[in-house]
């Protein structure tokens, strides 16, 4: 693990990479959004774990995104994600519509070093019909029939998220947001921003250790106070709904989006 800063961390992201991002409430590293846009590595294949919001909308709006694999994209109370929805309508991004547990299943397969995991449900959906990477087989352990869907492993090149704290050894405290660990296990590179960095090892006592993603899986950590803003961070601060509404309104047009992003303070 390397203690880093935002612009340096963004350099880990190369054009054409598969990038995993967490759901709104799990710890989105909004602090990395502008550095990623500055960095300009495009043709990204985003994996939303399991849904996306503001960050996905802004990366799409900035033209960096080739495909979005997700179970949903929205701004929550602020409504639809304007740049994402516009890109869908214009056909400028490729969709890989999924369902939450299928995203989790794909990451789990990668975590286990397995090529796939099976998943119930899905049969008869148009999600399945449009996914040529998912495969239906007859359950080999059943006597007859019993179709079941195989979800291939999702192996992101990069995972990016925000968490309350890390220690100076690179251990990151993710609490009960264990999907962040699942993303990290499955990924080659893991970039984390945190509210604060501790001197003492989080693994030194069993209470804090229980919520730790070990440094073993962490490529770089950067200090970014309020790094999820305008999203909230569990146990730390609430979502700034007014700001998200302001974005939603501004980003209805490409020009409004550009103006909004231009007035954002660079990291």
């Amino acid at each position, binding site marked *: 693990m390397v203690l880093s800063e935002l612009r340096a961390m963004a350099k880990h992201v190369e054009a054409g990479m598969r990038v995993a991002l967490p759901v709104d409430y799990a710890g989105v590293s909004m602090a990395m959004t502008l550095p990623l846009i500055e960095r300009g590595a495009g043709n990204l294949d985003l994996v939303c774990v399991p849904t996306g919001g503001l960050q996905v909308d802004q990366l799409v709006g900035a033209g960096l995104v080739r495909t979005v694999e997700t179970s949903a*994209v929205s701004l929550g109370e602020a409504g639809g994600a304007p740049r994402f929805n516009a890109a869908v309508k214009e056909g400028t991004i490729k969709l890989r519509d999924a369902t939450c547990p299928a995203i989790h299943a794909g990451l789990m397969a990668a975590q286990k070093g397995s090529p796939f995991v099976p998943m119930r449900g899905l049969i008869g959906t148009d999600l399945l019909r449009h996914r040529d990477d998912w495969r239906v087989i007859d359950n080999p352990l059943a006597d007859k029939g019993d179709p079941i869907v195989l979800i291939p492993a999702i192996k992101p090149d990069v995972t990016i998220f925000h968490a309350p704290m890390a220690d100076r050894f690179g251990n990151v405290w993710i609490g009960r947001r264990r999907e962040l660990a699942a993303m990290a296990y499955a990924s080659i590179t893991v970039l984390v921003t945190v509210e604060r960095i501790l001197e003492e090892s989080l693994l030194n006592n069993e209470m804090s250790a229980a919520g730790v993603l070990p440094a073993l899986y962490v490529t770089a950590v950067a200090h970014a106070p309020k790094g999820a803003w305008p999203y909230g961070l569990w146990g730390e601060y609430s979502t700034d709904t007014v700001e998200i509404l302001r974005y939603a309104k501004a980003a209805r047009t490409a020009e409004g989006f550009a103006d909004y992003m231009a007035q954002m303070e660079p990291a």
Partner: protein
Amino acid sequence: MVEVHPREVLICTIARLLDGVRHVAVGASSPIPAAGAILLRALKEKAGAIGPRISILGSVDHNFFTNGSAELFDCAGQGRIDAFFLGGGQIDGFGNVNLVGAGDYPQSSVRWPGSFGSAYLYFVVPRVILFREEHTSRVFVEKVDFVSAPGISEDGVFRTGGPYALLTGKGLFRFDKSRPGFELESVHPGHDLAEIKAATGFRFAHGERPLQTKLPDRATLDLLRGRVLDELAGTYPEFAVQMQRELAQRGALVS
């Protein structure tokens, strides 16, 4: 006669639909389903019984999960979730739900957020309650443009769950798997069969003179307007305040 707010009719109907469940999960932005679940629990506890466990996604007070956002689905797959709610940009007469978009996929003319967990939960939660306040033929269509989650499955497909009822701003339907299709069970006060027919794009079964949806009694209303709204305010403060304000305007608030 006690004046009943239309949303109170919905909340009390949901409480009835949930009767008997051990564990109900409610989505992140679903104050009315959450209120229905909390009301049922309050009624059970008042009667000295054990109310349902309620998991509200994204809530602090009602979040019993510690294994990330996968746990809800794992929990459902283990058969530990008895009831769940689904909305839908479109719902058709076979109980198919579309949460993705209207028009041709993928370049939908209207794009909704996406399927979330519906394509799994609809298969494994025994009592899925379809809930959509807007009752128009734009929502209730003959055939959905995209199947996020199908209402029925072919024989041989593993399925322990599916649609149980459809609750709208105008009425309550039951889902009959054997036909398959919806049957109108009752009409909410202020609405009638002709209006519902005109607003529904799919055919459904119904009696000649459908019943009116059962209204809550005074004790239930008191519980709802007091304890239930208070508990709800922890997770949905804006909804609770708005309900209280509207009830006050109608002079119905129990202080």
